């Protein structure tokens, strides 16, 4: 539905000039810091270096070093400091240079942030955002390429978001900063430079997207493809290719890994009867596994074919460019998987 609305807006010429994801994130941070003096940004290189990926460009000059805090290289320390600051009344945004480094601080994300509202029976809420690039970049090797959506998505007490477009980035980051609970905000380095059209509504400083609602990026009727972050772009490309073969794919941009919008996913599967889940991370216990489980639980009779799970290869990310390409899902993988779901059914299904 939102997909249709977006196209309508575009047709009416109401959208402003395209905006990169980087600018979208920067503007969201800027607006939220301006609106609430309790919001501050903390992380490595966020101040004088303008952000390791330039996401926080200009913020130091605007808000000063007390609110844009350059830290020493101490993830456990500064993530914990952020949590403590949130316990006592501020609204920190903690940047991890990549989420791989969040593993050094994962105790604080889970044990002192996610669980605290529960352990204190609602007395201590933790309005913190942990953000940074997640997943594979290009040629950065095994220790810099892991996707953490599944790990954080498993933890009660956390909200986990994964934006795709600039509108997602703006709306979800603003929602995350305003949210009273800990939010893990998984960006993607390769998306930072990509431009997306953005509506005037999304540029408004009060714009916010609801947490827990997926977006149907492209309406279809033959197969549902769920994806998040960079993979949404791949899914859309695959959908274009599939359309030429007469397969109409519905692409769901999850936006929110936790809570997962099971209702949208199930409604879509009940409509198309086929599901392909798509993610960049490791396959075992991944986001796709959870989506499969939820669809089997809720919509088993509607499935006309086994669910296809596309994930990254079950290996640490290799360095060589050609191997890396093989380790991450590519558009043809998605096309092939979608076709597999369609051809496994009886001949009648293809015409529906």
């Amino acid at each position, binding site marked *: 539905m939102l997909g249709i609305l977006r196209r309508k807006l575009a047709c009416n010429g109401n959208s402003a000039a395209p905006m990169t994801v980087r600018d979208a994130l920067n503007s969201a941070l800027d607006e939220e810091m301006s609106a609430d003096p309790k919001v501050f940004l903390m992380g490595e290189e966020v101040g004088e270096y303008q952000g390791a990926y330039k996401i926080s460009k200009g913020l130091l000059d605007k808000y000063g070093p*007390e*609110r844009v805090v350059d830290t020493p290289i101490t993830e456990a320390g500064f993530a914990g400091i952020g949590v403590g600051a949130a316990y006592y009344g501020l609204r920190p945004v903690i940047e991890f240079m990549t989420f791989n480094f969040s593993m050094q601080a994962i105790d604080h994300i889970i044990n002192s942030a996610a669980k605290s509202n529960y352990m204190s029976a609602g007395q201590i809420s933790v309005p913190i955002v942990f953000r940074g690039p997640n997943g594979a970049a290009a040629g950065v090797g095994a220790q810099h390429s892991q996707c953490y959506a599944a790990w954080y998505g498993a933890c009660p007490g956390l909200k986990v978001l994964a934006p795709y477009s600039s509108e997602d980035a703006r709306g979800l980051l603003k929602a995350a900063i305003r949210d009273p609970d800990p939010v893990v905000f998984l960006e993607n380095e390769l998306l930072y430079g990509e431009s997306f059209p953005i509506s005037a509504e999304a540029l408004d400083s009060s714009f916010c997207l609801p947490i827990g609602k997926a977006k149907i990026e492209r309406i279809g009727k033959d197969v549902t493809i769920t994806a998040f972050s960079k993979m949404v772009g791949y899914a859309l490309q695959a959908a274009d290719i599939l359309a030429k073969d007469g397969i109409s794919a519905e692409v769901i941009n999850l936006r929110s890994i936790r809570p997962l919008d099971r209702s949208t996913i199930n409604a879509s599967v009940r409509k198309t009867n086929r599901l392909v889940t798509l993610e960049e991370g490791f396959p075992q216990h991944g986001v796709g596994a959870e989506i499969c489980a939820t669809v089997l639980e809720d919509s088993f009779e509607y499935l006309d074919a086994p669910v296809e799970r596309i994930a990254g290869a079950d290996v640490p990310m290799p360095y060589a460019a050609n191997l890396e390409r093989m380790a991450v899902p590519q558009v043809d993988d998605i096309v092939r998987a979608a076709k597999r779901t369609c051809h496994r059914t009886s001949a009648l299904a293809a015409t529906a």
Partner: protein
Amino acid sequence: MACSATAKFIQPPTISFRSSAEISDSFSSLGSTSSLPNKKLFSVSNNKKKNAIISPLSRRSATVVAVSSHVVKEEKKLNSTSSSSARTLLLTKEEGLELYQDMVLGRAFEDMCAQMYYRGKMFGFVHLYNGQEAVSTGFIKLLKKEDCVVSTYRDHVHALSKGVPARQVMSELFGKTTGCCRGQGGSMHMFSKEHNVLGGFAFIGEGIPVATGAAFTSKYKREVLKEDCDEVTLAFFGDGTCNNGQFFECLNMAALWKLPVVFVVENNLWAIGMSHLRATSDPQIWKKGPAFGMPGVHVDGMDVLKVREVAQEAIARARRGEGPSLIECETYRFRGHSLADPDELRDPAEKAHYATRDPITALKKYIIENNLASEAELKGIEKKIDEEVEEAVEFADASPVPGRSQLLENVFADPRGFGIGPDGKYRCEDPKFTQGTAQV
């Protein structure tokens, strides 16, 4: 390796005792310099008794015994000469009784916990504080309500000293809904927003960054939000934690940003069965402060008055905005690491020695010798506390266990985090949601 460790460890008692004015001098002079490896900041005797105390290292207890007994002896000597008047001035009758009451409450409460545990009313991990009361009372009784305390799993007495009612702590331990965390936290996770007890953490070292963060908030409120805020945070943790990375990360950042936090090390010489001397390359923890640019002070943690003196200066320093301090309190836990610990590795001689330095007995003696109160008054306090603890147990016993619906409550401050249900509406909006269906 062990020998050199011991030699270093023995040195602290050669430091001389000074009056409180001199103590504050040490603190303030440190503020202007950034590395003071040799400065002894808190002193015990004026005479440099360098060699008198060094005994051959026999691993754990003997060395420690030697050190501490001399500390006590020198204290008593000075007491009888010039400092007794100086010391009495440090404590009024009200303060004396307040400290006594707080320590007795801590002790009585923990003893009751042990009883209740063995009767099956309390379960899981319970870590008792017997013997360390001087540290909690000495520090926390100097705080305002808005100041924060962050602790470890050995947190019952920190919560009590900070003002959380005994009945709420006891209920929490029983897992009842009237507990300070409605039974959802437990022994190791005491939180109180009202009294600013920010946990209660099971992972050692986890509380240190959280405390540093609360101090960051205090500074931020003052400097960015321009509020009138001089709140201080105390971080309590043990000797084992001082080998953990987060400890050093926070010493660095707290000193770097001059955060109003006091790092209080409760050095009770033992992790579970791992002696501090076996685990640490340089066992003198107070030395790690100056390495990061903050005062490092060693104090006799079995003497509440000494702890209080040092605490006053450290807290005042933090309030003035001069930054953090590292206070190493040499203390001892009379019981095992937890109620499940058979406590077989510690030398009985060591335990006996520290039992003679019981902080409650010491304070009682001091109060009576200096005519601050009569024995009868102190007995009255003990009786009152016993009744309070009994009442807490009765209250906890009589309280209900959490209802089934409580399972899903408080996971999020914004329960829309539970997502959207099959009917397309947020699950939390469904009135049946918290009635205990397993389908979340």
